């Protein structure tokens, strides 16, 4: 099972999912993130899914969970880099990723989290 690395970027945590995600890895990521948020006192989490070719209901729920758990720990989550084909499929699936904010890329995700472009953020 591949463990997804969590990087610290000042007050933010950055997760870049590069591999085809196994369910176990997703669950592990959730746990790792919760721990790192507490350890570092981070106030923002960016999950980069640029490399994800699919997002199914399990991964979708994972993303929502992470957003909810982070919120409880006083951190906001932004998911960035969703591919068009993935977005279209999610809409067809009827998955809306409740509680998950999104941005086009990491840069905009950071802007969103550091409050500079708060109106730009698209909350689903």
């Amino acid at each position, binding site marked *: 099972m591949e463990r997804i690395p969590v990087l610290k970027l000042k007050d933010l945590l950055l997760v870049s999912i590069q591999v085809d995600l196994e369910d176990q890895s997703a669950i592990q990521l959730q746990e790792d993130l919760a721990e790192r948020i507490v350890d570092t006192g981070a106030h923002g989490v960016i999950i980069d899914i640029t490399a994800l070719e699919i997002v199914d209901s399990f991964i979708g729920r994972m993303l929502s969970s992470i957003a909810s758990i982070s919120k409880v720990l006083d951190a906001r989550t932004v998911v960035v880099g969703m591919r068009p084909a993935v977005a279209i499929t999610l809409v067809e699936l*009827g998955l809306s990723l409740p509680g998950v904010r999104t941005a086009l890329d990491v840069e905009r995700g950071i802007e969103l989290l550091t409050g500079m472009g708060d109106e730009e953020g698209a909350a689903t």
Partner: protein
Amino acid sequence: MSSPTPVGEPEVQTIRLDQDVVRVRQLVRTHAVAARLSLVEQTKLVTAASELARNTLVHGGGGRAEIQLVMNGPRRGVQASFTDEGPGIADLDLALTDGYTTAGGLGLGLSGARRLVDEFALDSKPGTGTRVTVVKWAR
């Protein structure tokens, strides 16, 4: 369901572990590319396959996937079936309703998967297991 003509031999993937779901995705992707499905069509099919493979693993207690290239006249497509010898689905109508979730908190995802494919056939009886077959055609 139309009668798709199989092309070549089906590829079988047992679904027993987490990583098997990933392998099913990759297998389906390869076939989808070979059938010349567009990127969006590929993504929809692989996503549906992921849902169904997971169902087989989590609810069916494990089973297998058979992926096959098919043809209907000039059209090419991919057929994927997921079989398990699990408990079966007691209420098919309910299971195919949007938002249906079992006690374990994991939605069966069947209705979602159905929306992503062109053809969907579900065969399940309590006690004898489940077989789901889907087909996606290239436009």
